């Protein structure tokens, strides 16, 4: 199972990003191997449709769940359609490593 976590930076010490479509980076966690890969969000400064395009990216990477602070209405609808689980965290003081540890 693969999980996407919205992140403010490109390593495990980075903070968790509460935004989904406009997060700076995404951490892809492969739960079987424990491997993490970071992808820069090329849509973070898009004038519109950032959420939708990020959902496409999530599907392309084969993730089955997404952890972020909140999802816009369009992103939510799409994620539901693709049967991707959405997990909402409201605590942005956590680092990516903290979240990865809690999943394992």
């Amino acid at each position, binding site marked *: 199972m693969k999980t996407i976590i919205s992140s403010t930076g490109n390593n495990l010490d980075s903070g968790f990003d509460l935004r989904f479509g406009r997060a700076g980076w995404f951490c892809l966690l492969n739960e079987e191997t424990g491997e993490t890969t970071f992808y820069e969000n090329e849509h973070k400064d898009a004038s519109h449709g950032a959420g939708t395009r990020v959902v496409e990216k999530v599907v392309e990477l084969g993730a089955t*769940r997404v*952890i972020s602070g*909140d999802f816009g*209405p369009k992103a*939510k*609808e799409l994620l*539901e359609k693709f*049967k*991707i*689980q*959405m*997990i*909402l*965290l*409201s605590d942005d003081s956590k680092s990516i490593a903290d*979240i990865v540890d*809690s*999943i394992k």
Partner: protein
Amino acid sequence: MRKVVAPPGFRGYKPYGNRQVQQQHVDLLYEEYEAIKLADYDLMNHLEASQLMGVSRPTFARVYESARRKIAKALVETREIRSVFGNASLDHSWFVCNDCHTRFNIPDNLTEHHCPLCKSENIQSIKEQI
């Protein structure tokens, strides 16, 4: 039915520092919370917001007006605000974990019924919580 994308993250607001304790409270419906959120937080115009909630623009305006009046009433009369389900239809089944307070949905292709983060089975449907 008015579509609500995410229910409010609170069950109520209480005034503090007030002299007399006001027993009565104001019931803020989910759709009213959503109307305030769409119009004043997401800064959408009433037409866009009404389409998102699946109601006509006049209906949206009515819900929004009612929400503002309730909040004003709560502030002026120092009443507690409680969030109440109302006529909302939640998009999907959302859950809250009673241990780590994470909110999440369970798509119908998943069979597991526990919190995805802390693996606790002490989870509750957001609808049941009200």
